[in-house]
Structure formats: C-alpha cells, structure tokens
C-alpha cells in the first residue's frame, strides 16, 4: 500500500500521482493521512484503485471520479464526488451540501447524513444515504437513483426530471412537479439491487416510498406559471 501524508506531501503531488495511474497498475491500494479538511483531495482519478482517506476532507473530494473506490474515514465537505462518472465513493461520516452533484455514474454511499441539495442535477449516479438529507435535494435531478434510509428535508425533487427517489422516512415537503409514485415490482427490484450494491442489510424495500416527476412542467405552459 502506498501511503501519502498530506502534512508532508503537497496536494498537487498526491493528485498528480493518482492521475498517472492507468488500468493494470500494481499500485492499487492508496492511503491518505492527515487530510485535515483539505479541498479537492483525490480528484479526477481514472483507474481501478482504492484510496482510503483517514480523516475529514473539505470541498469536492473525489470530484469527477472514474473507476476508483475512494473511502473517507471522516466527514466530507461540499460537493463530494461531484460529477462522478463511475467507481465508488464512501463517506463514513456526514457529507455537506451538494453531495453527488451532477454525478453521471457510480455509487456514492454516505453512511451518515447528507446536507442540502444532495444529488442536485444528478445525471445517472446512484446515491445511498444511510441517514437524513437536507432541503432541495435532487433539485433538477435528471436521472439516476437517490436512496435515503432516513428523512428528507423541504422541497425534495424540485423540478425533477427522470431521476428516481426512494425515501424510507418522512419527507418534509415535495418540490415543484415532484410527486409520490407507486412502488411497482420493478421499483422494488431496482431498490433491492441498490441496497445490495451499497451493502445495506436488514431493510425491506416495502419500507420505502418512491418519488419522481409528475412531468407537468416538461414543456413550458403559461398556465403552470404559479408552480414556479
């Protein structure tokens, strides 16, 4: 395992080293020590490696990740795994605002709570939050899945497109054009697969409600102006 201590090594050196990794590299296990809230830790990786970060990180940890598994043993600042393409990002603590923003693929697992705007503009990512999520989550969410084992805050799924939201707890309020939808067999199957992928056991899919777009605001109509 390669271990990098961010107290001694500049961030730029860490990220450049990670960017030099290609498919088939032998250096598949990395450990980052003393991140101490630094921003942009382990961003832009494009190789099937595992990076274990021991401590809290700041903004945009694992941003635009491809293929890699990044595990944060601590809490994560805003924009964790933003625009992730593939791979897996696991936050053992809580995540701040915009977790998984515009993510296109892969899995973001937040074992604690996520703050506001979790999954904003998501475009294909799967996000699983074991705790609660804050207000305006899944705003303008285009596609992908957001699974919340706890509660959701205000205006969930405001102006949502085709993303699927599964919430086990309460939803404080739904945003514009977001409605509760029937949980059909295919949705139970999809949710079950997501929970399995995230390693969540002992939870039944029947405990969740599904939310998605009413598709009433897809094409502009003046008579819907009050909805905005």
């Amino acid at each position, binding site marked *: 395992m390669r271990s990098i201590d961010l107290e001694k090594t500049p*961030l730029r050196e860490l990220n450049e080293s990670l960017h030099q990794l290609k498919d088939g590299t032998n250096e598949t296990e990395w450990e980052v020590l003393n991140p101490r809230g630094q921003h*942009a830790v382990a961003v832009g990786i494009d190789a099937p490696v595992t990076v274990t970060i021991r401590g809290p990180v700041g903004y945009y940890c694992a941003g635009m990740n491809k293929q890699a598994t990044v595990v944060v043993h601590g809490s994560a600042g805003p*924009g964790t795994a933003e625009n992730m*393409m593939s791979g897996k990002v696991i936050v053992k603590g809580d995540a701040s605002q*915009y977790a998984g923003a515009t993510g296109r693929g892969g899995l973001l697992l937040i074992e604690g709570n996520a703050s506001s705007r979790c999954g904003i503009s998501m475009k294909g990512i799967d996000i699983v939050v074991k705790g609660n999520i804050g207000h305006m989550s899944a705003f303008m969410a285009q596609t992908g899945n957001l699974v919340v084992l706890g509660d959701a805050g205000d205006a969930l799924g405001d102006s949502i497109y085709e993303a699927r939201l599964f919430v086990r707890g309460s939803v404080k309020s739904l945003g514009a054009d977001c409605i509760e939808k029937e949980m059909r067999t295919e949705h139970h199957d999809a949710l079950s697969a997501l929970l399995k992928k995230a390693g969540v056991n002992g939870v039944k899919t029947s405990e969740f409600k599904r939310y998605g777009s009413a598709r009433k605001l897809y094409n502009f109509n003046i008579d819907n102006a009050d909805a905005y």
Partner: protein
Amino acid sequence: MSYQNPPTTPRKSSTFDDYTLSEIRRAAQTGIYDIRGGGAKRKVPHFDDLLFLGASMSRYPLEGYRERCSTAVTLGTRYAKKPIELKIPITIAGMSFGSLSANAKEALGRGATLAGTSTTTGDGGMTPEERGQSKTLVYQYLPSRYGMNPDDLRKADAIEVVVGQGAKPGGGGMLLGQKISDRVAEMRTLPKGIDQRSACRHPDWTGPDDLEIKILELREITDWEKPIYIKVGGARPYYDVALAVKAGADVVVVDGMQGGTAATQEVFIEHIGQPTLACIRPAVQALQDLGMHRKVQLIVSGGIRNGADCAKALALGADAVSIGTAALIALGDNDPALEGEYQKLNTTAGAYDDWHEGRDPAGITTQDPDLSERLDPVRAGRRLANYLKVMTLELQTIARAAGHNHIHNLEPEDLCALTIEAAAMARVPLAGTSWIPGQDKL
C-alpha cells in the same frame, strides 16, 4: 358657408410605437413572454461613438504593409502551465451544440483554426467535430454541466467557468423541445422533446469564496495545465472582475448586453445588463487597482463587429475580444439570399432571431438534419477565417496609424468620444475638448 378644420397628419406615439403595440397584441394572444436569440437590439452607446485620433506632430505612424504591427496574444499566464498562444486577439465565443448545428460548430472550429485563434464550446458539451477541427478549444464549465466529463476537460486547451453572459446576467437558459434531437438529448442526459432548462447558478458553489475552491479542483483535475477563464455578464464589472481575480482566474471575460444568446426572454435581453462600452473601463480599473492588468488577461465581448471595435476595446485596456453573433453572420446567418425563406417565417433577413425554434434556413441555429445539411462546414469555416483576417487587418491599420507596433500598445489617449455619454463610459475626452465627464481633469 361651412368651415372645416384642416386635417392633421395621423401621428403615432413614440411611447406606444409599432413594435410595442405588436408586442402587447402578441402577449395578449399567446400568454407567453417573447423568447428570442441574439443580443440587445436597442441603440446603446457603443464603439461607434468613439474615434481614434491618429498620428500627427506628436506621434509617428508606422508604415502600412511594411512596418510590423504584432497581433499575437498570450492568455492564461497567471497560473497555467500551458498558456494559450493566439495569432490574433479575436476569439470565438461560447455557443452550444444544441443551439447550433454540428456543422456550424465544426465551421467555427475550422474558421478559428485557419485564423490562428480559439473557439469555445457551449452549454451542450464538446462534440468530436468541434474538437477535431479546433486547434485551440476553450471548454465551458456551465451551471447545467450538460455533457461535462473529465476526459473532455483534459482534452480542452482552456476552461471557461461561466458565471453569466451579457444577454442575460443572472439568467439561465431554455432549449425548447423542438431542438432536442436524439443526439442533443443524449449529450444532455434528458428525454427527447422536453424543454431543457439551463440553470442560472452553479449546482455546487455559491459566491467567489466557493468558486476559488472550485477552480482549485479544476486545476487539480487537470494538473494545473489549463488556463482558467471566468466569464461574467456586464452587471457590476468592477466588482465582478475584482472577485474573479480573487477567485483565481487566469483570464476574465466580460460580456456586455449586446452579446447574444441562443434563447432568452426579450425583456431580459433588452432590460438587464450594461452596454459593452460601459463595462470595459471599470473592468480594467479593477485589474489595475489589484496590480493585475496584463497579468490576468481581459477579454471583452458583446457587439464586436469589425477591426475598429476590436481596436477600441483594446485601447480601453482589453487584451482580446470575442465574437459570437458576428461569427454566425460570417458563416451565413441572416443572409439576404435566403430572404424568401425568412419571409415564410414572418421575418426578414437581418431581423431573424427565433433561433430557439430550430427552423433556421441558413442551417446554423437548428438541429433539423435537412436544414443543417445546407451549411458546408468547410466553406463556412473559410468565410469565418476571411472575416477574422479582415478584422485583423483593420485592427493593424488603426494601430499603425496611432503609431503602435503591437496592438496592446493602443491606449485610451488614442481615443476621443463623439457623445457625452460615450465620453463618460469610456473615460476619454469628448471630441474637441479635454473634458471627460465625471472626472475633474480639464
């Protein structure tokens, strides 16, 4: 004997003019505000209100066609490992694939490359046609993040974080369903045929302090190679530029209200934002106050039409200019040769601005395969290159006449203004006087 008053000439109101009346009727009929493309059509103080003084007893001119007048510019010298080197100080502004056809995007890349300058992606991601034909390509980083991915980010020669644009500072966009082809829908990860909202704010940062961290992330992802631009609309240019510098920009792009858009509300285009002329001096002042003029480069856009406009923007302190609408005209947009077809769309050549409807007979602002096919990207690219070369020659002509061997040596002292308004905005003397309105200097 009967007496008749002599008739008066029917008189229309200046306040309720024909356009205003037609807009009231249109709104009453449709219940929807007017959406259109392009920039502000109203007359505002502009570069035409400035003149160059030329050389005389106190300045030596340079010999046309003989003495060298350099036009090369380098952008992104502050932090980027690989700054951009351009032969001319005129770049092509961001315009999206989606709003423009793939052929039009390719033509912009071809024309820019032939002329030795850069072109820019837009709110729809990077197309292979555009990357392939563009020697220097600036990749826009927009609130919608449509098509955003790290591979394209690394393929780019520079990254432009778009905070706003001159046609609609503070506004997002809407690509209407009729322009959403299969390819556009796929690139934007949305269903075909629905209206696609382009957000007005970035999803994962708010304010310059956050932006500084976002730029750090973009630099880290690209190993500090690429120049990072910040583009702002002409709202509060002094503070916007100062904050862009604070956030870590290598280059700041300031786009005035004449700058075009693919589609926005008429009310937004005409009533929000400042004219380009009014933006330049405050922007330059901000750079000077921070000791960053010429260290962080300034690109000015919005209504640049010819070499004279370019020369005036540079004389006021810009490092380069950017063109969008003018580039589309060079490709063939609004060509009088298509007048018959424009009339079928209830408009006329020169006035066509329903770019959002996707029915452009010139094959530029459309996704219709038959219409798109009309634009030959090789020929259109050549036209754009010709136009850029003419602009450059005009710019050199003016610079030589003012005695400068590099276009960056143009300065405000080379200019005077024809109107008090332009003199105040450009901070140059009213012609025939030494009076700069708003300044105590005599």
